[in-house]
């Protein structure tokens, strides 16, 4: 098993500061869904991780904890996160992306 970054939508969507994406070393890995959390009355949309691209470095955790001071990201075992975003299920729009969540363990 291995660790990947997991973003808590409720915490992130309260501010969605968009810092972590600028610091993830991997391209196309932390993406934004500008509508996430809106159904719960949260304003800004949330970041989420394409777990198949995440290398588990935890740099985003440091950025969210120490620069953004939002503590929205935790490292989790890939088999513990439940349905997640995978590159093949991500749709790009004009200024937004959405992901259909699926089991991240391929088998």
């Amino acid at each position, binding site marked *: 098993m291995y660790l990947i970054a997991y973003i808590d939508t409720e915490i992130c969507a309260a501010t969605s500061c968009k810092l972590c994406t600028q610091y993830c070393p991997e*391209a196309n890995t932390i993406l934004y869904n500008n509508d996430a959390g809106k159904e719960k009355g949260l304003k800004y949309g949330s970041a989420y991780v394409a777990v198949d691209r995440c290398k588990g470095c935890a740099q985003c955790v440091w950025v969210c904890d120490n620069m953004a001071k939002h503590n929205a990201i935790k490292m989790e075992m890939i088999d513990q996160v439940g349905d997640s975003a995978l*590159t093949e299920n991500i749709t790009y729009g004009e200024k937004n992306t959405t992901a259909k969540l699926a089991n991240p363990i391929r088998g």
Partner: protein
Amino acid sequence: MSLDYVKFTPGFDRWMPKEYRDMVDHGPFGKKTSVSQVGTFKEILEEHPMCAGCAMTLFIRLAMIAFPNPEDTITVGTAGCGRLAISQAAIPFVYGNYGDQNGVASGLTRGLKLRFGDKPKDVVVMAGDGGMADIGFAQTLHSWFRKEKFTTIMLDNEVYGNTGGQESGMTNKGQVLKMAPVGKKFEKMDMLGMAKVSGCAYVATVVPNNPRRVESVIKKAVLVAREVGPTYIQAYTSCNIEYAIPTDKVMEDAKDVENDRYKFSEYLTDDAKQALGELYGYKEYLPKPAKTVTAG
């Protein structure tokens, strides 16, 4: 080398991988994209085998986002860690033999000029400190003395990372590394000073813990190289393997090193300022209007 080179031959698009289709439909080609928009458009850098958490990877990613015209850009690299990622982007990459990168880029830049005239075609070299300041030193300096119009970016991890930890000219004095067990005996080379002496029109130091600054520096360097002459960026891009930096502390290290000995610096010749001000809307470089003195 135009917007069309990324497009599909009609009828073939459904056979293309999803990543490629996303790149054509939602990538940065022909648009103005910026670091502040990342996460909402498809980046041209794809998956690659560089180490988890490597600051060099982050820098390369930011550089690819910052290129002013990615559809008209060619990167040149050489042996070393960086090329493992630079070669995995949707823009042409040329591999120069170790140390030859600035020679290769000189020929390429001249060839593009002959073929395309004044149509902007940007050449950007990205290579490690060993490849640039040691093995490729002569070719780097001579390309600057010859005023070749392309951008040179040193990915300075202060070590030969790809071959397991030898000291380079850019390693700091006293540093102990796996294959420098008694510590380096000489000072870090002053490549910034040499860049200025040999006639670079724009010279900057940057650390990737400030992504927007990386973006700004890359844009200026590429635009000045296009219009005026050689440009040089020296970026601190730590090797978390050879310097044993825990991956979640890489940005903390970048901040410490920036405060300690890698402060942001920028040098522009008057010609560079004029080009940026007059051709690319950088108002801060336009001459200030003379104050009208009213006789009292």
